[in-house]
């Protein structure tokens, strides 16, 4: 059962452009919605996260938009930079359930000069 689906699978964006990655989930028990960033040879690291009682959260160039009724949330990277080139994972989970992340399928982002 594929609980968490991401799109697109890969993305190429020009420097300064906007990168948008989408995540769709099935499990309505999820109640915390983080995005993790992973560079080659490294483990994933938390980038930004949102609670379901808000529709948008912004931290610097990174914004999460959350649509509870559609069971979707997205990551927007403004003014994309080559250093943002990485693989991005949505990883929703159920708080109080051990915070076990359910990782999405991943999106490989490349930002070109």
């Amino acid at each position, binding site marked *: 059962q594929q609980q968490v689906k991401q799109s697109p699978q890969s993305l190429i964006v020009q420097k300064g452009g906007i990168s948008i990655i989408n995540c769709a989930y099935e499990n309505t028990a999820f109640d*915390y919605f*983080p995005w993790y960033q992973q560079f080659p*040879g*490294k*483990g*994933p*690291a*938390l980038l930004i*996260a949102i*609670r379901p009682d808000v529709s948008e959260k912004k931290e610097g160039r990174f914004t999460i938009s959350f649509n509870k009724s559609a069971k979707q949330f997205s990551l927007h990277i403004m003014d994309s930079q080559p250093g943002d080139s990485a693989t991005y*994972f949505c*990883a929703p989970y159920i*708080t*109080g359930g*051990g*915070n*076990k*992340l*359910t*990782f*999405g*399928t*991943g999106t490989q982002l490349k930002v070109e000069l």
Partner: protein
Amino acid sequence: GAGVSQSPSNKVTEKGKDVELRCDPISGHTALYWYRQSLGQGLEFLIYFQGNSAPDKSGLPSDRFSAERTGGSVSTLTIQRTQQEDSAVYLCASSAYRANSPLHFGNGTRLTVT
């Protein structure tokens, strides 16, 4: 401070051999997780330890996989009678035990079974 440390960083083993992978979590983190990352399956949860509670083993793919955590700190993931499909990167993460505390991942052990 120091992050999550995993060893070895790479391990090549022959099919049928047993392997042990080690994880040193961040000091003071009571929660410890093992995940597996492979091309075909993405990032999969394997096992979760929290303090002195019984571990959540719900993600272990077979009884060839086991893990222990000694003294609430270091953890070892053991794979017995390795198979080629066990080839993957094994990631360990730790977190503080409070609501929505992020997971801090190590850089993983790349296991290759020949």
